[in-house]
C-alpha cells in the first residue's frame, strides 16, 4: 500500500518512510505544496501524511483544496504547531487526524491504520490484539486462530473496541453502535453486554482485558 509523505524536513521524511516500510507500507516523499498538488492530481495514494509548515505554503491550504475537490483520501496532519487553536483549525480544514511533533512512530502507524480501516478504506479486514483476532469482513472472532461464537451484540461491542484499539470508546458510542439511535436503552444495557463479553473472552483464554473507565467508557488492551 502506497502512502505519500509531504514533509520539508528531508531527514524526518526519510526516517518516517523507513519506519513505515517496516510496518508494511511503501511511501513516496515530497517537500513542497506545489509538487504535492501536481502528484495528487495524477497518482492514487492510500493516505497522505501532511506537514503543515511547508516552504512554499501552508499544508492546510492544500488540504482544503483537496476537500473542495471531494478527494476523500485519508489525511494525517503532522505539525509542530501545538497551539490552542491549531488542532481545531486543522480538523476543521478537513484533516482526519492530527499529530503534534514529536510523536511516536507506533502512534503514527496506529492512527494511520485507524484511518485505513474506516469503511471504504483499504486496509485488510483483520484486527488483532495479542491472541485475539477479529475479521471485519465476515465478523468472525478467533482466539489462537480458533473461531469463536459470540452473540451478535457481543460481537458488535468487540468490533467497536478493537477498531479503537489503544483508545477509550465512550459509553455513548457503544450505545449508538449496538442499538442505533432508535428507542430507549436501559441505562445499564451497555454494562451488561460488556460484562458478558469480558466473561466470554476470559473463559476462552483471550489474553486481553476490557477495561471499564468509570463515567467515561471502555478500552481494550493486551493483558499484562
Amino acid at each position, binding site marked *: 500500500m502506497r502512502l505519500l509523505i509531504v514533509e520539508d524536513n528531508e531527514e*524526518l521524511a526519510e526516517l518516517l518512510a523507513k519506519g513505515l516500510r517496516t510496518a508494511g507500507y511503501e511511501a513516496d516523499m515530497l517537500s513542497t505544496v506545489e509538487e504535492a498538488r501536481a502528484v495528487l492530481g495524477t497518482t492514487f495514494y492510500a493516505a497522505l501524511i501532511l506537514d503543515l509548515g511547508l516552504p512554499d505554503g501552508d499544508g492546510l491550504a492544500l488540504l482544503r483544496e483537496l476537500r473542495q475537490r471531494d478527494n476523500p483520501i485519508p489525511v494525517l496532519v503532522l505539525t509542530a*504547531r501545538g497551539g490552542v487553536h491549531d488542532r481545531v483549525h486543522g480538523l476543521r480544514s478537513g484533516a482526519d487526524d492530527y499529530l503534534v*511533533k514529536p510523536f511516536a512512530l507506533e502512534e503514527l502507524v496506529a492512527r494511520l491504520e485507524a484511518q485505513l480501516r474506516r469503511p471504504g478504506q483499504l486496509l485488510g479486514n483483520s484486527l488483532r490484539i495479542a491472541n485475539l483476532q477479529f475479521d471485519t469482513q465476515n465478523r468472525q472472532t478467533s482466539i489462537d486462530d480458533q473461531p469463536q461464537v459470540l452473540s451478535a451484540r457481543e460481537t458488535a461491542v468487540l468490533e467497536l473496541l478493537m477498531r479503537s484499539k489503544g483508545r477509550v470508546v*465512550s459509553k455513548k458510542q457503544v450505545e449508538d453502535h449496538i442499538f442505533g439511535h432508535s428507542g430507549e436503552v436501559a441505562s445499564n444495557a451497555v454494562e451488561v453486554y460488556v460484562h458478558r463479553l469480558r466473561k466470554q473472552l476470559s473463559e476462552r483464554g483471550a489474553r486481553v482485558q476490557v477495561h471499564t*473507565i468509570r463515567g*467515561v467508557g471502555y478500552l481494550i*488492551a493486551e493483558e499484562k
Partner: protein
Amino acid sequence: MLRFKSIISRIVFLHVVAVVITSILMSVALSWLLNYATANIHNKAMQEQAQTVGEHLSIGADGRLELDLPSDLLGLYSQAYGRYSYAVIGERGEVLFSSLGDHQALFPADTRAGAIEFLQHRRGDATVSGASVRKTVGDRIVWIQAGEDLANRDVLIDDIVADFYKNVGWITLPILLVLLIIDIAIFRRALQPLREASEIAEGIGPARPGVRLPTGEIPREVRPLVSAVNQGLDRLEEGFRIQRDFTADAAHELRTPLSVLRTRIDILEDQEMRRALRQNVEGMAHIVSQLLDIAELDAFVVDAEEKADLRSVASEVAEFVAPLALAQGKDVALSGSPDPVWVKGNAEMLGRAIRNLAENAINHTAPGSTVEFVVDADGTVSVLDDGPGINDDERKLIFRRFWRRDRRKQGSTGLGLSIVQRIAELHSGSITVENRKPRGARFQLRLVRAA
C-alpha cells in the same frame, strides 16, 4: 472654569448664553429702531404742518405779511386743544404770528437756521418738539415753526412703543429656544457616526485585535482622532502578532529536531537502547511542550464570548489519559453532574488545565489506585488522588514555575501546576488544593458559570 463632560451639554450651555445675549441685544436694537421710526414720523408730520401753515402766508395790500388760516387749522392750533402750536418768525427774529397765548416763538428764533430743522425746546413744564421750515414769501424770508407738546403726544404711536415687548418681544425668546432644540437635534444627528464607532470600539480587545473603527461616516473634524486610534491598534496587533509568531517559530524550531530524533530512536534495532533513549526523548519533549504552553499562555487571551462544557472537556481528558494510566496499572474515573456544565472559557485551554492536574495525580499515585474526576454543576472540576497529599508548607510553592518536591525525580518539569494556575487566572477562576482523608490530594479548579 466650568467643565463639561459632554459636547452636547457644552453646546446647550453656550447656546443658552448666546440666547440671553441675543435677546438683550435684539431688544435694545429693536427699541432703538422703533423710537427712531416714531421720531421720523413725528418730524415728518411737523415739517408738513409747518409747510401747510406756510401755504397760508401771503403779502397783503399794505405790503405786510398776512396769515389766513382756515377754520379746521385754527381748531388744530387752538389753545383749548393745546397739543399743536405754530409760530412764524421774521427776518430779524421777530415773532410775526404765533398760536401761543403769549405770542412767543416755539423755539428760540435763529435767523441763520437752514431750510428745514428739527428742534426740541422746554417751555415751562412742557417740552415741545417740532420743525422749523424756511420759506420765501414774495421778497421776504420767514421761518415757520410747528411743534407738538410731547406730554400730549399721539397716543397710538406711544402705545405701539410701550406695548412692543408685551405683544411682540416675548416671541423672540421661544423662537430662540426652539432654535436651541433644533440645534441639539442636529448635533446629536451629526454625532451619530461617533456613537456607532464607540459601539464598535467596545468590542475591541486582545481577543479580537483585528477590529478597526470605521472612518467613512466619521465627521472630518474627528477623523484624525479615529485614524490615530486605528494606527495605535495596528501597532498593538503587530505586538501580539510578533509574540505569537515567536511562540510558533520556537515550537517549530524545537519540535522538528525532536521529531527527527524520536523517529530515529523508534527505528533502532537494539531494544534495550531504544527503550532508554525513548524515555529520555519523551522527557525532553515533555519539557519543550510545557515551556511552549507557558509561552503561549503568556500571550493568550480568552474570548469573553467563548464557553465550554466542563463535563465533556473533563470526559475528553479522561479518555486521553486513561490509556497512559492503565499502562501504569492505575485507573481513571469520571463522576458528578450527568448534564453539561457550561462555563466561560476556551475548551482547549481548560482541557490542558485538567490534563495537567490528571497527569500530576497519575504521577503521584501508586499502581492499583484510581484518579477520579468530579464535575460539579456549580462550574468546578476536581481531580482526586490517593497519593501522599500536600504538606501545609508546600501548599503555595506547588503552583510556582519549576518548583519540584523531589528534584531527582525524572519526568517532572515543575511546570504543570503553574500552567493550571495560569489557565485558572485567564478564566477568572481559581485552583485550590486540599488533603483528603485518610490520604491523597484534591485539586479543585473553579470556573465561572456561563449563562
